[in-house]
């Protein structure tokens, strides 16, 4: 239990630093910056007590906002995907109920991991860019940015999970 808290806190700080120091300055093709910090949401263990998880994901988004001067954009998006994470996971696995404590992301098949991560990433990025542009006239730019940044984020976060998260 203690180990779990420690791992997740370290991962929280590590991902925020990675995002702020490295990933916010990549500017691939001049404008693409992957938002890999949401990997924390994908990897957080699924438990009965979900309130703490909501608060923690709000703080995760807010700490990114503090560094990138974006108001509450990342906080709103991260909180939203934290809220819909469980329903989406249930839909992807096609199970109505499963054993919460035993669940490990690496134990499910790759195509399901991909679907789960891609859905949450696209949702998150769509909220980030919609709130960032804040106008209907920029709708094509929002979709364009969402699509290409999502590809980048999904690639990096899946590679990161495959490399750094132990398979049980």
């Amino acid at each position, binding site marked *: 239990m203690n180990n779990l808290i420690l791992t997740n806190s370290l991962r929280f700080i590590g991902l925020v630093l990675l995002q*702020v*120091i490295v990933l916010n300055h990549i*500017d691939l093709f*001049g*404008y*693409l*910056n992957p938002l890999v910090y949401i990997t924390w949401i994908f990897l957080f263990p699924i438990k009965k007590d*979900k*309130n703490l998880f*909501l*608060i923690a994901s*709000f703080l995760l*988004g*807010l700490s990114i*906002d*503090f*560094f*990138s*001067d*974006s*108001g*509450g*954009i990342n*906080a*709103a998006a991260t*909180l*939203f995907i934290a*809220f819909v994470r469980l329903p989406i996971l249930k839909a992807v696995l096609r199970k109505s109920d499963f054993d919460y404590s035993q669940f490990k992301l690496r134990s499910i098949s790759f195509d399901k991991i991909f679907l789960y991560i891609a859905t949450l990433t696209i949702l998150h990025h769509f909220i980030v860019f919609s*709130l*960032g*542009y*804040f106008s209907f006239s*920029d709708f094509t*730019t929002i979709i364009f940015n969402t699509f290409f940044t999502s590809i980048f984020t999904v690639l990096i976060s899946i590679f990161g999970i495959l490399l750094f998260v132990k398979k049980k």
Partner: protein
Amino acid sequence: MQQIIYFIRKFRYFLLFLFLEILAIIFTIQQHSYHTSKFVNSANFISGGFYDKMNSINEFFLLKNENKLLIEENTRLKNLLSKKKIKYTQDSYKIIDSTNYFQKYEYSVAKVINNNYTKRNNILTINKGTNQGLTSDLGVVNSLGIIGVIETISSNYATVLSILNSNSKINVRLKNSDHFGTLIWDGKTHTTTQLIDIPRQAILKIGDTIITGGKSAIFPEGIPIGIIKSFKFERNQYQQINVLLFNDMSSIGYVQIVKNLQKNEQKNLEQNTTTNE
């Protein structure tokens, strides 16, 4: 009463989500509106100090470029000085050096420690704050043009509303005539900004220089900004005037903060005039 408590307990999870989401949206709206006090900004002790540390490492690799800029500006200033000297030697000129009597603008130096240019609303962080005598609404320029306007401020750091921001509206004019316009940004590329409100009598040519206008109380008049890259003339109006910036907004190091010492006087006068009408 009991039912309310029951309701809150039942939907506790959803209500928490709703509460936090609304909080986040409020922060976002605060960020989108100009001139409101902002809770979330990078001018605070933690993120400001963090960017400061990071920048001191990065700075080392950019010294060559920074030196080149300094040499260029020195050359320009020396040329200006040598022009001045010719005038002094001619006896018929009587030069009244107004800077001896009153000073209108005061410049101080700062360093950009966090630069953004890929988002729709870009905000920079600089390493000076109220302790160094800065206030909000001061202009930020460098040798190649204008950067933005100081927005929020803490004791040692400040955030700058970049010209690459949807809230940024800078009063500018053409160099070769006195037609005023407003400089905005459409969010597409960081090398070009847009010029609006140019009257149709103005004669534009591709390659014309745009400089700051003297209308605003923030920037001194005549700071070069960029050249006209392309424009359309439709329905008797100028449409889509693109301005290619002299400044490379993706690489900004040291900047100068412009403080207008007569700003209050100008503001008061303008305010009194409008209220008297």
